[in-house]
């Protein structure tokens, strides 16, 4: 769906390239998580995929980026936007109207969705994000999490082939963050949508992504399944990416030769793995019991 070849980009006002020699292939229908330390070039990478680079931020563009077969340099931003729906990092500036319903209508009206289809799309998108009850609310009166869901729903209503989100859970508490990811994953599965999400919460994104991309100083350090990427927890830590603690623990046990199973992405998986290692001894039994209670 998205092909990036030898992509290097320098913003006009900076001297050094922000991203260098990027090669990345994102298959249709996949759920891709992009993470990395602050200032590593994650956002620039997403701007390249949704056409904001080169159409809104001028600079030196080398290589090629194609989305659904269209070269982003030769296609207008408006045309790219009909394929890639983007939710920006700064939600307040993304919102252009003051009522939830109008915000939902905005993109649909602009892209000329037939008027008899609009109502259904609005209802479905609100339902998909679980915010049907907010339809008539004034956006300024919503909480950060609700605004985030409105912003996502307004893009979902456009039914883009690719959904691109820049830190969609930045303003959310852990429970709402998980909820947003669950909703996104379900939506993507049901509609066959490709999802690209920039996310700092690596534990969360590893649970849902098929591919985890780690960006470090403008280059792609890893682009693989979350399990394969998380196996490198030591190197990740060096470049400023904190792995989930359960992963780090199990990777150390693996390095010491105690554990030789697959990489654990969360506490549950680590728990099962430990039960397996400890087998019949009391700690293992205690773990099994606590797991049964949970």
């Amino acid at each position, binding site marked *: 769906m998205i092909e990036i070849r030898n992509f290097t980009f320098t913003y006009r006002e900076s001297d050094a390239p922000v991203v260098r020699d990027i090669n990345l292939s994102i298959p249709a229908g996949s759920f891709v998580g992009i993470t990395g330390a602050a200032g590593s070039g994650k956002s620039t990478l997403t701007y390249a995929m*949704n056409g*904001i680079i080169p159409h809104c931020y001028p600079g030196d563009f080398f290589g090629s980026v194609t989305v659904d077969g269209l070269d982003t340099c030769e296609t207008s*931003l408006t045309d790219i936007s009909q394929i890639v729906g983007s939710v920006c990092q*700064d939600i307040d500036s993304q919102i252009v109207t003051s009522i939830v319903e109008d915000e939902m209508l905005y993109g649909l009206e*602009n892209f000329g969705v037939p008027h008899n289809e609009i109502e259904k799309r609005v209802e479905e998108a609100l339902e998909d994000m679980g915010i049907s009850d907010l339809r008539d609310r004034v956006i300024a009166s919503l909480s950060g999490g609700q605004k985030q869901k409105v912003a996502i729903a307004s893009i979902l209503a456009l039914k883009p082939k690719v959904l691109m989100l820049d830190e969609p859970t930045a303003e959310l508490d852990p429970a709402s963050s998980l909820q947003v990811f669950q909703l996104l994953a379900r939506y993507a599965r049901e509609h066959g949508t490709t999802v690209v999400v920039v996310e700092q919460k690596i534990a969360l994104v590893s649970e849902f992504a098929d591919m985890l991309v780690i960006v470090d100083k403008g280059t792609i350090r890893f682009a693989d399944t979350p399990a394969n990427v998380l196996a490198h927890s030591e190197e990740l830590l060096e470049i400023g990416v904190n792995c989930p603690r359960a992963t780090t623990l199990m990777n150390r046990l693996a390095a010491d030769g105690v554990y030789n199973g697959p990489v654990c992405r969360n506490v549950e998986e680590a728990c099962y793995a430990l039960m397996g290692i400890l087998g019949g001894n009391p700690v293992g039994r205690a773990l099994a019991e606590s797991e049964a209670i949970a």
Partner: protein
Amino acid sequence: MNGFLEYVPGTSLLHRMNPVAKLLFAVIFAIMCFCTSNLVFLGAMLVLGLVMAASCGMMRQTFGLMKAVFVFSLILALLLILTSSSGEPLVDLPWGYIGTGSILAAVTTSVRLEAAAIPLFLTFYVTKMSDLSNSVVKVLHVPYKYAFTFTSTVHFIPVFMNDMKGIMEAQTARGVEFDQGGFVNKVRLMVPLCVPLLVSSVRKTNSAAIAAEVRGFNLRTRESGYKQYPFAAYDIAALVLVIALVVVAVILH
């Protein structure tokens, strides 16, 4: 707490009226107030404005507005009192005199400004900004770009005010005393803060422009709007009423 020009939800007749009808009514009403100097008629128009405000439950906002307009009209009234020497002389001035006529003119000006302002402001309080801009584009054929510029401006006022508040709070936390020394001191301390505010505003405006563009801003035409804005009987009645008022105002002069 609602902000400046921010829509207040409701179901009153004024809320339900066609946005274009409301806007036309308010604009013609304001022009009409400037067509006459009959104080009794203007007083009646002021009362009519207040009745409209009461009918949609906006008395609190209206009084706030009236206070602001009053301060402004006071300056004009003062100028009128000091410069127009007419009627029975009351106080002698080196360049003329303050007469009953000057005071009448001052009062008329104040009442006129108050009466003209109320329906205009009510229009914004009882109409969603998006309905207003969409209907103006659809019915009055105003180019969408201009309508969007206006709605974005109004949309961003509270956002920027919030930013300013945030910057001021951050400065207060570092010991800047905004609450000391009155208004002049406050303004003096606020001026340097306009630079960071400007920077953040430009950045926000830029991302808002990008956000609008990736959601098809350039494709929007007059036919894009999903909602329809038909004229109901009461919309036509309101327009007939305001035109009749214009006629009366011109006759009374």
